[in-house]
């Protein structure tokens, strides 16, 4: 990592030259609008991976696309250069750019199912990648070159695979095909935009291994864009942390993750859940300011506990300190304090002995089929009073189906379910109102779980009116008290969901569930659509509220790292069957089942 001031000519003789150098890049909205990213400078050597880390809205994807000489519609590069082997990509004409893209710079998008053409066979798409740049080779059979490329990304290189269409491949295979296309022309630089988001942990692990070996093997410089610090720490030698359009801290991964100096980096690290530690997660309150609302000073100052007046007055210049560059006036003090800013490991209080009280929810022999396909078979589950049970599993394990059976969105399941001793009807339509009230659900995606045409006040009042029969006059008062429970003020009453951030939306969804005064809260992947710092805030909120209100909770998640932060009990699902169940620490220790042990081994961990 070099600063913009570090001139290329001053480079030491023995280090290999940089493949990619970005200097002082600034991208604006429109030609005179507010800057979306500014002052971006970094460099990557052949064979190295740079992790570009930031939460949504930080501008990381905007920077990633600029590395290919591309800006999204309505954005334009105002200053700066992107040099690939010395050639400035931003000065190239469209024809020149086309020559470079795919051949010398390639891109792996986040969602391979959207990036591959669904109407063309895999073989044709791979061949196209080679043919466009005339790399099929005159002396070699193009087919054999394609098979070779596929072998490099560990796909079974059979002609059968080449005849398939993208939808006939799994998510992991699709991403491997996208990787194969990106590496096919032996590029100098590869830009990876969160390529493992949405993949299961074991698939993610394999993809990361493939990327690492290909970059080393072919001396490709890589920029890996991600919001996931744990993933980046597994792969990247250097890390640049972005916040509100600027790089706030950048340097060797080991240094940055072990001794972060910028308060934002520290907050981000404390927000990352760990599979091996329990205890509270410290989120970062507040939210990232959008372009145009970033103020004159350090954009992080409003959320920073250490901010002083000078911080708010002007943007801190990048300074080299303790082996990395950091944009923070207070970094020198943080450096001398030299404490590792990791949260203390304090596990969730384990339930003392076997739960004496009868369970709030008891499930026996639950099975569910989609047509002839069994989705769940023979599920037994107990949620003790005031306890939290985490249900973990990979995609397709049936965990969301289980949640839907419990809340009553599926009606054709078999087996027995009792809520506080009383049997539950299969479908919500057949459950009386007092029973509906007892089980409340928070859904995965806060962008679809709130009606966009209703205000927060109306949304939270709905259960009061329908489930509790509270008279209309008392609604506002009770809505405000519930909103305060989830740390939202009365100012939110008249806002619409599209005026809220993802974390705020999810808190409204939680408030709606709490308003019904349930006995059991079912949380279905409630944090998977949120940034890691927001995830930490929401998890802490759920935990505190559940304790205060004596709620029992069923926490469905694919993220094993979250389990010990929130739950005392864990259930591992695979192919619709329970692999293992018991106290969370015992299950996650991985001694009971080889499947759980493998899952735990594949979870990306912060390396510091």
């Amino acid at each position, binding site marked *: 990592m070099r600063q913009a001031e570090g001139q290329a000519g001053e480079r030491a003789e023995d280090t290999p030259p940089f493949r990619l150098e970005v200097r002082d890049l600034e991208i604006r*909205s*429109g030609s005179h*609008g507010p800057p*979306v990213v500014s002052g971006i400078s970094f460099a990557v050597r052949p064979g190295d991976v740079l992790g570009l880390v930031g939460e*949504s*809205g930080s*501008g990381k994807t*905007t920077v990633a696309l600029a590395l290919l000489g591309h800006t*999204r*519609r*309505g*954005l334009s590069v105002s200053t700066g250069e992107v040099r690939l082997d010395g050639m400035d990509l931003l000065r190239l004409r469209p024809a020149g750019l086309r020559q470079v893209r795919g051949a010398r710079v390639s891109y792996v998008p986040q969602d391979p199912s959207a990036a591959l053409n669904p109407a063309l066979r895999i073989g044709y798409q791979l061949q196209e990648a080679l043919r466009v740049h005339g790399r099929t080779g005159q002396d070699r059979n193009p087919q054999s070159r394609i098979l070779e490329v596929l072998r490099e990304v560990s796909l079974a290189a059979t002609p059968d695979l080449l005849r398939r269409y993208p939808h006939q491949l799994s998510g992991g295979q699709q991403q491997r095909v996208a990787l194969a296309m990106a590496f096919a022309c032996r590029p100098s630089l590869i830009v990876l935009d969160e390529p493992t988001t949405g993949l299961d942990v074991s698939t993610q692990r394999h993809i990361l291994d493939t990327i690492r070996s290909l970059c080393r093997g072919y001396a490709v410089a890589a920029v890996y864009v991600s919001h996931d610090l744990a993933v980046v720490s597994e792969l990247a030698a250097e890390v640049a942390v972005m916040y509100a359009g600027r790089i706030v801290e950048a340097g060797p991964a080991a240094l940055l993750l072990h001794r972060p100096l910028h308060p934002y980096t520290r907050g981000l690290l404390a927000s990352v859940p760990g599979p091996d530690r329990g205890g509270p997660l410290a989120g970062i309150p507040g939210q990232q300011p*959008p*372009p*145009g609302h970033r103020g004159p000073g350090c954009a992080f100052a409003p959320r920073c506990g250490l901010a002083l007046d000078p911080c708010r007055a002007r943007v801190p210049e990048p300074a080299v300190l303790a082996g990395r560059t950091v944009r923070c006036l207070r970094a020198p003090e943080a450096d001398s304090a030299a404490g590792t800013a990791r949260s203390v490991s304090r596990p969730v209080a384990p339930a003392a002995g076997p739960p004496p009280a009868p369970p709030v929810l008891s499930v026996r022999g639950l099975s569910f089929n989609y047509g002839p396909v069994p989705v769940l078979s023979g599920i037994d589950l107990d949620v003790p009073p005031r306890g939290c049970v985490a249900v973990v599993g990979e995609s397709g394990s049936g965990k969301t189906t289980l949640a839907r059976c419990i*809340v*009553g*969105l599926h009606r054709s399941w078999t087996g027995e379910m009792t809520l506080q001793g009383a049997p539950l009807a299969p479908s*919500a*339509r057949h*459950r009386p*109102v007092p029973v*509906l009230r007892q*089980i*409340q*659900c928070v*859904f*995965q*995606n806060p*962008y*679809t*779980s*709130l*009606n*966009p*045409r*209703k205000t927060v006040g109306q949304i939270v009042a*709905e*259960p009061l009116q*329908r*489930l509790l029969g509270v008279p209309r006059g008392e609604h506002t008062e009770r809505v405000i008290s519930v909103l305060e429970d989830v740390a939202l003020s009365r100012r939110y009453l*008249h*806002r*619409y969901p*599209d*005026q809220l951030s*993802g974390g705020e939306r999810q808190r409204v969804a939680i408030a*709606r569930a709490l308003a*019904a005064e349930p006995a059991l809260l079912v949380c279905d992947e409630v944090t998977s*659509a949120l940034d890691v710092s927001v995830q930490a805030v929401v998890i802490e909120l759920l935990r505190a509220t559940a304790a205060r209100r004596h709620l029992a909770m069923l926490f469905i998640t694919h993220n094993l790292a979250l389990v010990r932060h929130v739950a005392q009990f864990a259930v591992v699902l695979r192919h619709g069957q329970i692999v293992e169940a018991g106290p969370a620490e015992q299950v996650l220790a991985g001694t009971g089942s080889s499947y759980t042990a493998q899952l735990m081994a594949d979870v990306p961990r912060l390396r510091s």
Partner: protein
Amino acid sequence: MTADGPATERIRRHQWLASVGSAVRTPRGAMGLGLAGFVVAVAVIGPLVAPDSPTALLTFPFGKPSGQFPLGADFLGRDVLSRVLEGGWLLLLMAVAATVLGVAAGAAAGISAAYLRGRSDGLIMRTVDVILAFPQLVFALLLLSILGPRLWLIVLAVGLTHAPAVARVLRSATLDISERDFVKVAELQGMRPATVMTREILPSLSTPLMVEAGLRLTYSIIIMAGLAFLGFGQPPPSPSWGTMINENRAGLALNPWAVVIPALLIALLTIGTNLLTDAVGRAALGVDRRPGEAALMDDLDPA
């Protein structure tokens, strides 16, 4: 973005107002509003300012325009200007009534089919397919020739023939929305299906509803005028634009205005409503949003 006065509050609640508001500020929308507004003004204010009785025989058949009769006379020697001014309001009223009827019936069928799924879906959509198999005008003529040309029947026939197409559009729009989690939440709060459809789903359908209503209004006008031309409309002495075209086409060479003016008014009205509908649809979908604005929105809301 977060500071909301009471005025913006009302606009947010009724998003269609906002779409219409921004639509009329585009050239396309302003032009559409101008054309349609002009014709509506003629039809509404016309009866109040008409110089003569529309049914009185005042001069020679197909008399040329003169100072007393600026648009000349029709085939019976009645004042064309007065007949034009009187002959629009009923057509407009019937077209609007048929549109409201057709969109309401179609929306109810389409939303129910999509939300209830299963057997109801099959029943509703197969009925729709059967009705769609008849050409719209032929279906209306069939009904009218069996039951006789009554005005309410014309409205009913035109409205009902709109319903299937509206039902199809709203069914597909609803399919998407009824899968969203907020609908599931409403079900889990014990809401009855009818309440879920009207309270939770309907507000999100304002865009397709607006566009369909505009489109169907244009078709209604064309079909109503066409039926009047064919003799299914108001009974003879009373004036109507569609009827006038038919009555006076024999004298096209003698006094063209008796045909041209009603035809022109119908054309301007349909062009106007069409342009306005198009502009509203584009505004609601954000097609014409400035690129800078669009990119910023993407940046702020990645989901």
